[in-house]
Structure formats: structure tokens, C-alpha cells
């Protein structure tokens, strides 16, 4: 099948972001945390994207920030999906009180805006990467739970699942071999979306000061540091904001393409 242009662009950009994130240490022209120039210098050949509020090179900080932002978002999304999908499938296959307890618990968490829960929890717990990833992952898992339960409920009533039950198969086989392959395409598409929401979420938290702590930095934190530059017509705050937008769009382009591809797979839902 021919790859559409949009998917190609998305793939190239996503690949570029990943490459930068992985090899940040080698790519960044200046260290992350030393003031190398004047305050808010305009882009020049020395400082490609200018300098920030205390004279650090913005390009270098963007590159290091990519590493942190993408790592935290990816880790929390993976956690959210493992937790949410498995619990969602269990709720759908077991039904009865298991389903009730899990679903009501999820309702409870979802009833409170996740940003508020996150702020409350993070202001109590020690602020480090592990806690941040855990909190984001668990909060996002509720959304994944909803989706995977809804998808799995449709699949559990199919005759082939009944056939597996009549064969005497255990829950593991039914969840991972009968249901998961048929639920994969909506989940993959959702992963793309959730990853982006995670990027936005960690950026929001950092902007509010409860996310990534110095000396590390991420894109949301950089927006916060440089937001005053906007008043003076400097581009410093726009750079990390544009990076967030570009990452969001490119990952979404890839997710769209995967969705259209997997649904037309042999006998898939869309076929």
C-alpha cells in the first residue's frame, strides 16, 4: 500500500523529534544550564534560536527539553495503556461485580478534573520524575479503561470468544489472543492522541511549576520562563510552544495513518 504524503511528513518529523531526544547530549551546541549570552538575544549565527531570560541558549535547552518531555509523555502513556487496557478487558470479560467496582472507581476519578487531582497529589508527594510519570499514567489510564472496556464489550459477545470459553480457555488467552488483536486499531489511534495529551499535560504542569524541576527542563517550563518575552516582542517563548505544536501534529499524522491501515487489515473491523 502506498503511504500517503501526510503520513510520510508525520513519520519524518516524529523520527526527527525522537532522534533529537535520544542524542540530545551530542547535538546540543551549549550546556543546558549555563548562561552563554545576553538576556533575550535575537537569533544569530552563534545562538540559532536566540537566548532566554537569563542568557541560556534556547536551541540547546529545546533539545534537552525534548528528551525530558518525550520521555515523560511516552512513559506515562505506556503505563496508562498497560494499566487501562488490561483492566478494561478484565472488566469486559468478567462482567458482574468486577466490572461494577472497576467502572465506578474510574467514574470517581474521572468526575474530578485531572489537572486538579494532579496538582493536589503532586503538591503532597515529592517532586521527581517517577512520581510524575506514575500520577500522569494512572490519571490517563481511566480514559484508556473507558475505551478498551467499550471496545472489548463488543468483542466478548462474538461467537469466537464463546467458542474459546467453551474450549475451557483461561482469562489470559481470551484477553490477549482473542480480544486484544481485534481491539488494537482503536487503541493504537488512541495511543497517538493520549501521547499528545500527555505532552500537553506535562507542559501544563511545568508551566504551573509542579512539573519538571530545574536543573532539568521541558518545553512547558521553557514557555513559563520566557513568557515575559512576549511583552517585549521577543520570540523566546514561541520556540518551545511551536515545538509542542509540531510534535502534536506529527504524531497525530502517524496515528491517523496507522488507524486507517490497521482497520483495513484482513478481516478487521473496517473491512
Amino acid at each position, binding site marked *: *500500500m502506498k503511504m500517503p504524503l501526510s503520513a510520510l511528513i508525520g513519520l519524518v518529523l516524529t523520527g526527527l523529534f525522537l532522534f533529537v531526544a535520544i542524542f540530545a547530549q551530542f547535538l546540543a551546541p551549549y550546556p543546558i544550564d549555563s548562561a552563554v549570552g545576553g538576556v533575550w538575544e535575537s537569533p544569530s549565527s552563534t545562538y540559532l534560536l536566540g537566548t532566554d531570560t537569563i542568557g541560556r541558549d534556547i536551541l540547546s535547552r529545546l533539545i534537552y527539553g525534548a528528551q525530558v518531555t518525550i520521555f515523560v509523555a511516552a512513559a506515562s502513556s505506556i503505563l496508562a495503556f498497560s494499566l487501562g487496557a488490561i483492566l478494561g478487558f478484565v472488566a469486559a470479560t468478567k462482567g458482574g461485580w468486577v466490572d461494577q467496582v472497576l467502572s465506578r472507581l474510574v467514574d470517581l476519578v474521572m468526575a474530578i478534573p485531572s489537572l486538579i487531582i494532579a496538582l493536589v497529589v503532586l503538591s503532597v508527594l515529592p517532586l521527581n520524575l517517577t512520581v510524575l510519570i506514575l500520577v500522569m499514567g494512572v490519571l490517563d489510564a481511566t480514559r484508556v479503561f473507558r475505551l478498551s472496556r467499550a471496545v472489548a464489550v463488543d468483542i466478548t459477545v*462474538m*461467537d*469466537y470468544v*464463546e*467458542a474459546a*470459553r*467453551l*474450549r*475451557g*480457555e483461561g482469562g489470559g488467552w481470551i484477553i490477549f*489472543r*482473542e480480544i486484544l*488483536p*481485534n481491539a488494537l486499531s482503536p487503541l493504537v489511534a488512541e495511543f497517538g492522541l493520549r501521547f499528545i495529551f500527555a505532552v500537553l499535560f506535562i507542559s501544563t504542569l511545568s508551566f504551573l511549576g509542579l512539573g519538571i524541576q530545574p536543573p532539568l527542563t521541558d518545553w512547558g517550563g521553557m514557555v513559563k520562563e520566557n513568557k515575559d518575552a512576549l511583552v517585549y516582542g521577543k520570540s523566546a517563548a514561541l520556540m518551545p510552544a511551536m515545538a509542542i505544536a509540531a510534535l502534536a501534529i506529527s504524531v497525530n499524522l502517524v496515528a491517523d495513518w496507522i488507524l486507517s491501515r490497521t482497520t*483495513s*487489515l*484482513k*478481516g*478487521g473491523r473496517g*473491512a
Partner: protein
Amino acid sequence: MPEPLLDIRNLRIEATSYPPGEPPRHVVLVDDVSVSVEKGKVLGLIGESGAGKSTIGLSAMAYGRGGVRLTGGQILLNGRDIREAPVGALRNLRGKEVTYVAQSAAAAFNPARKLMEQVIETSLAHGVMPKAEAEARARSLFAQLGLPNPDTFGDRYPHQVSGGQLQRAMTAMALCPKPDLVIFDEPTTALDVTTQIDVLAAIKRAIHETGVAALYITHDLAVVAQVADDILVLRHGKKVEYGSTDHIINRPEQTYTQALVSVRSIDHVEKTAAKPVLTVSNVTARYRGTHFDVLKNVSVDVAPGQTLAIVGESGSGKSTLARAITGLLPPTSGRITFAGRDLSRDLAGRTKDDLRELQMIYQMADVAMNPRQTVGTIIGRPLEFYFGLKGEEKRKRIQELLDQIEMGKGYENRYPAELSGGQKQRVCIARALAAKPKLIICDEVTSALDPLVADGILKLLLELQAQQQVAYLFITHDLATVKAIADKIAVMYKGEVRRYGSKTDVLTPPFDDYTDLLLSSVPEMRLGWLEEVLAHRKMESAGN
């Protein structure tokens, strides 16, 4: 010879299909088909699924379903070619000169509106007649179609009437604007035989009395033989044979037509048997949270190498009996003994051997196989799960099973979507056989298949039974199938077994009322059968 009302000449219909993972393909759905219908006559279009019969039917309205293009030939309605007619003209024609009766009336009616509003809707939309006249006409049509309380029938909502009545209401809807031509697309296929005969008679009478021309589309030759004047037999979008009903039924020329006419001619000698492998005694069951027994005191048994057929119309409890035996619906009372041991009521309490020796084959092979697993995985899993087979040993056994279902090499790596309907059902049979079962429950295994394919499946099942002495519990509503394969029959009605015994006993008079009704409702492949049955029933009811 009078001018034909509808004259289709050298019709060619094409479409573009988009197979997954491959470049789009150009397909010819209908190729060089010519038919004509005169006023007051009925043309039957017959063929298996994918033969193009519905496509031709819809082309009489110059309509093609999504992506379908009418690319060649002429469609003359009352002498003018409607194939190239502008959309405005077609809009005026559809629902006024040509009307359509769909297969599933339940899906075709708007559940939120009363029947009368929907029946007269097209007549009003086309300005054929004023509202009062349309309502009067609808009421007279209701009476003609034998609907109860024709004066008030239209005040009901679709969910308040039965499936057969709804199908007749749709026929009334089609006849209301006084069309020249009505297209019936499998109007009785979704109905039980006992209902089908009433609807069939009603449609036939209505066609006769209103004098419209009709296209009658079906896959059941015995049904079309009762209503059609001429029959066109189609296969793969091409004409196989076209002639009068008498000609097609009594003197078919093409081998394909001959096969269709003689289908279900399997000779099956009834076997008497020894000790039963499965005994169901006094089983009563209800669904959780309800207070209504869906099975009442059911007792049946079946011996190794024997076939017990459970017959009855939809809602009679046949499939529920299967669920009770498999443990999916634990019975509230009664006993099930299998292979000499008492079976636990629910699935969780059964041993691996209980599960292995009792296999099930489903009606819809499409959803009975995981679309993401290959044929090899589907058949291989029971081998691995029950017998611990691995690697080369497993592969060899899979091939053996594929040979048994006459599919040969090269199928292990295919996905279900890459198989035909008959092949899918064969793979399901292989999956059941892989467990080396003592009993296989076959739940309507042939009802979703075309008649010739279904015949092949039945022959295969009988062959396998002779080889392996496996018992079948065969659930079906199709009495022709029952005659072909059963050794014992249980007739079910409203959750009870009405009649039970060896095939000859059950099918030999005297019958109880229900069995009589059921047996006499099965369409026979000859002309005039419908009239005979109706006349017979009338006489009997007059005698009582």
C-alpha cells in the same frame, strides 16, 4: 404479443471493489442479462448470494447501491429507457411507478411512527392521491393481505405487530401508490416457515388482485416456483437459464439449474442405536432475572454415530437447549448425562475432558472465527490446548484435518476473510473435530449458506460421522435438512418438546396440530403446491 412493461436488454453493471491491501479492482456484477416482464406477470430472479439478483432488481428503478454503475444495455420501463434518465425523472418514478419491498421489514420501518403514516407516505409524497383516499386504500390492502383488524391495523407501531405482519404491511406500502411494478427482494427469507406460507399466499393474492407486475428475488427455488410466471436463474452475474416456471422446475436444461432443483436429495438411512452418549432429562431453564421458563421439562437423548435434529421456529427454545447443554445457561432443574458421567450445570464446574468431548459449530462461521487468527491457529489451538501437540506434530495433524474437510494444502496461513462462506464453515468443522469430540452441537450450520454449498457441508458432516462415530445434535428450522440427515427428531414449540422419536415415527401421520402445520408449511419444489396446501387447510378448518 403485448408490449412488455419492463424490458431489460443486455444489461451490464459494474463496480469497483477495494480489497484490503490490494489495488482497487474492477468487477462486473451483471453481464449481458436480458429479461422482460409483462403487466400482471411475476418474474422470479433466483441465484446464490453474489449472483447479482438484487443488483438487477434495483436496476429496474435505475438505482445502484454505493459504487455500483449501470454501464451498458437498456432498461425500458413502459417503453422509455430509464438508465440514462435525469435524477429528477427518476425521483418521480421511484416510489410511484416502481416500488420496493425489502428483506427485513423490521429494519425498514421507522419504529417511532405509526404504520399507517408510513404506508401512505410515498403516495402522499408523490401526490398520487389525497390523504383520505390513501388511507382507505391502505385499509383495503390490509384486508387483502389478510392482516387482522384492517381498519385499526394502521394505528399500531411497528414493534406491536409480528414479523410476518410487518412484512405484509411493507407489501401494502409498496402497493399503495398503485405502481406498475413492485420489486420483492427476499420478502420471506427472514421468516419462519409457518409464517412464510401466509405471507407468500398474501403476496400472491395481492399481486393477482391489483394486477401489478412484479420482480420476485429469492434464493429459494421452491418459494419462487409458487409465485412466479417466469424464472431467470443467475450465477456470477450471468444468465444461466431463463424460461417459464414450468420449464425451469420440470424440465431444467442447464446442469446448474438441475442441481438447484434436485438439491437436498441426500439419501440417509436412519440408524437405530445403542446406549446414548448424551441424555438430557427433564431440563428446565430460564434466563437470569426473568420469570419465564424458556425450556420446560425437556428430555432427549442421542447415541454415538447418530444425529438428533431439534426443529422448531425461532423462539422455540432450540438454541437455548444448546446453551443449557454446553453449560452457558445453567438449567434450573433436570439432569444432563454425557458419556456416562453427570455434567456440571455451569461451565466452570466441567472438566477439560467434558469440554473437549462436547464441541459446537455455529450458524455464522464469520463471527465464530477470530478474524485476526490464521486457519492454522484456529484449528491448531484445540490440538495444543487439549493434546499438547507442538511443532511438526501439530502441523501434520492440522494438514490431516484440512484433508478431512476437503480443503487440501495451502490454507494454514490464510485468514478467515480470505475464505468463501462454505470454506469458513468447513474450518469451523475442523476446529470441532480437532478436539476428537463425542458430540458436536450444530446450531443452524447451513442456514447462512447457499443451497449447493449447504448440501456439500451436510454431505461432509455425514461422511465424518460414518468415519468417526461422532454424534450430532443438529439444531435447525429447515425441515428439508432434517429429512436429509436426522436419525431422531425432536419438534420444539414454546420451550417444550412437542413430538420426539425416530425420524420415521415423527414424520409419519397422525401428527399433532403443530407438527402438521410445520411440516405442511415447507415449500415443495413443484407448481401449485401453495394452492394445494391452502385449499387443504381451508377444507380442514371448514370441517372442524
